[in-house]
């Protein structure tokens, strides 16, 4: 009995350990909130925090998709250009006037966007798995392709939503709020909840982690490795599409420079959130925490009025490193 009791004791303790590692990004978040409050009294206001959370939506949602891709051992560098490409197509479709009724048009555009996003993800997945090209190179290639097509579609300029009626109809999708909570925040939470459910509570999620931690073991366990990886890319594409659905009403326009370097930000959010880049473990909630941290750092920079404009990048870099070090030492201590 005593052995058994002991083992229970231990289990609880080691569980606490695991939790702590998952909690670490949230600790870093709290740290930043404190720093922010010291820097500027406006910082901790509801408006400001809601603003920051709202604007972290794009990266957060994309990063949730990236969590799947990275957990399964791959990498997607094309998401930033994919945002530009999908958004361009969406606006072009809405500008085409193919459907007269605005509400119907909007619905059609939303459906189309989701399909295109999933299609782009599928392309990435197939090139990587069926073509057996390192995901880094495969998605670097499609990054160029999506970006190039966007430039071509926009003829080097911007693509702007023209119908004012559609614009007013669509605007609340970013600027509106549900029960006082801004729509983008609601969307982040919904997307993350669904993603967490899929990753932790479904067969597919289990397969993703298995493939990412050892694809041979997965194959010998009868898991269709390539299909699992491809679907992860499709999920990434869907997340990009959702981000686009929020992006278009916000600025009402895209250009060839839309989404530049977002892939880097998304990957950073994932890694800061505690998911290892080598695959085999995914932390969805950590990821959105990571996205929020990144956005907060920028926000604190902007609200603080004593940092030279030129040094912002340097301070941001230092903050990220310091936050990680603090987080590391927190985990080690307890």
């Amino acid at each position, binding site marked *: 009995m005593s052995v058994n009791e002991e083992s229970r004791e231990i289990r609880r303790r080691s569980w606490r350990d695991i939790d702590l590692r998952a909690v670490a990004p949230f600790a870093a978040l709290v740290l930043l909130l404190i720093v922010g409050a010291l820097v500027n009294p*406006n910082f901790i206001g509801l408006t400001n925090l809601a603003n920051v959370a709202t604007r972290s939506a794009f990266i957060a949602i994309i990063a949730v998709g990236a969590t799947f891709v990275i957990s399964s051992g791959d990498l997607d560098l094309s998401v930033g250009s994919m945002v530009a490409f999908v958004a361009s197509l969406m606006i072009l479709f809405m500008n085409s006037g193919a459907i007269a009724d605005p509400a119907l048009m909007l619905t059609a555009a939303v459906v189309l966007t989701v399909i295109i996003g999933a299609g782009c993800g599928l392309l990435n997945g197939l090139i990587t798995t069926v073509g057996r090209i390192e995901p880094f190179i495969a998605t670097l290639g499609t990054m160029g392709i999506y970006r190039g097509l966007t430039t071509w579609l926009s003829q080097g300029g911007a693509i702007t939503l023209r119908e004012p009626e559609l614009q007013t109809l669509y605007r609340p999708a970013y600027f509106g709020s549900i029960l006082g909570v801004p729509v983008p925040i609601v969307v982040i939470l919904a997307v993350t909840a669904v993603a967490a459910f899929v990753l932790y509570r479904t067969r597919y999620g289990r397969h993703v982690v298995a493939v990412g931690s050892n694809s041979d073991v997965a194959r010998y366990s009868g898991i269709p490795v390539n299909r699992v990886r491809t679907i992860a890319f499709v999920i990434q594409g869907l997340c990009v599409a959702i981000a686009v659905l929020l992006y278009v009403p916000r600025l009402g326009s895209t250009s060839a*420079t839309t989404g530049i370097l977002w892939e880097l930000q998304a990957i950073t959010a994932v890694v800061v959130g505690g998911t290892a880049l080598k695959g085999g473990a995914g932390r969805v909630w950590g990821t959105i925490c990571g996205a929020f941290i990144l956005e907060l750092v920028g926000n604190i920079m*902007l609200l603080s009025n004593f940092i030279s404009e030129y040094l912002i990048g340097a301070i941001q870099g230092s903050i990220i490193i310091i936050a990680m070090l603090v987080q590391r030492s927190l985990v080690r201590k307890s």
Partner: protein
Amino acid sequence: QDTKTIGVSIPAADHGWTAGVVFHAERVAKLLMAAHPGLNVIVKTSPDPATQANAVQDLAVQGIDALVILPSDPDPLVNAIKEVKDAGKFVTIVDRAPSVNDSTIRDLYVAGNNPALGQTAGEYIKKTTPDAEVVIIRGLPIPIDQQRQDGFDKGIEGSNVKVLDRQFGNWNRDDAFKVMQDYLTKYPKIDVVWCQDDDMAVGVLQAIEQAKRTDIQYVVAGAGSKDMIKKVMDGDKMIPVDVLYPPAMVGTAMEMTAAALYDQVPVSGTYTIDATLITKENAANYYFPDSPF
């Protein structure tokens, strides 16, 4: 005296011209704060449109009475600017106009004239070398670049000036160097290079010098950096002229905005800064040796 705050949102110093913008914004901010006790000017830079939209939002959170914005890309920023305007603040847009550019979104528009920058260059080439074969190095695929291209085409209209090629050099000296090297490989005879930006001209000149090609008669750049204006002043044969596109325009806009806030003069509407052709004769007027640009 009551305190007032002006928020200034400009692109990050990511190449020479925007560095100039940052320099002049900060210079004028100091001047204004010295001139008006109680006036606070906050200058914020952002690397891309989405971040700039955030910056505008953050400025609004801090509480501002007027916004001066030089958008990195205007259309994506319309909504963000509109929110400030709708809150009843004074809004000045500098340089780049959104497709809808009227009093619903801003009070004052200080226009840099992008089409004119291209047109002035085109007209100069048409006048000096009417049969020239020209290669063009563009910037990045964004609207202001397109406007400059269109302006250039209008400038050379009706002449024998022939455009051999247009490629993007990303407003970056290293990329311009590469593009020029390849142009030199591709075309045995090039008369004139229009690279529409002084930063890129640095790379272009090195590539020409390396290839020891003598067929290129001159290079037309633009913006008015101190290095290029110096070359014009010194009578450099490769850089006979430069087209002015002054980063100092942001300072002008800030001064006009302050004037509006303090009700010294009622300002509104559009104020265009011209794309002056800098020649050896007038170059000294545009030479600021202290500017980083």
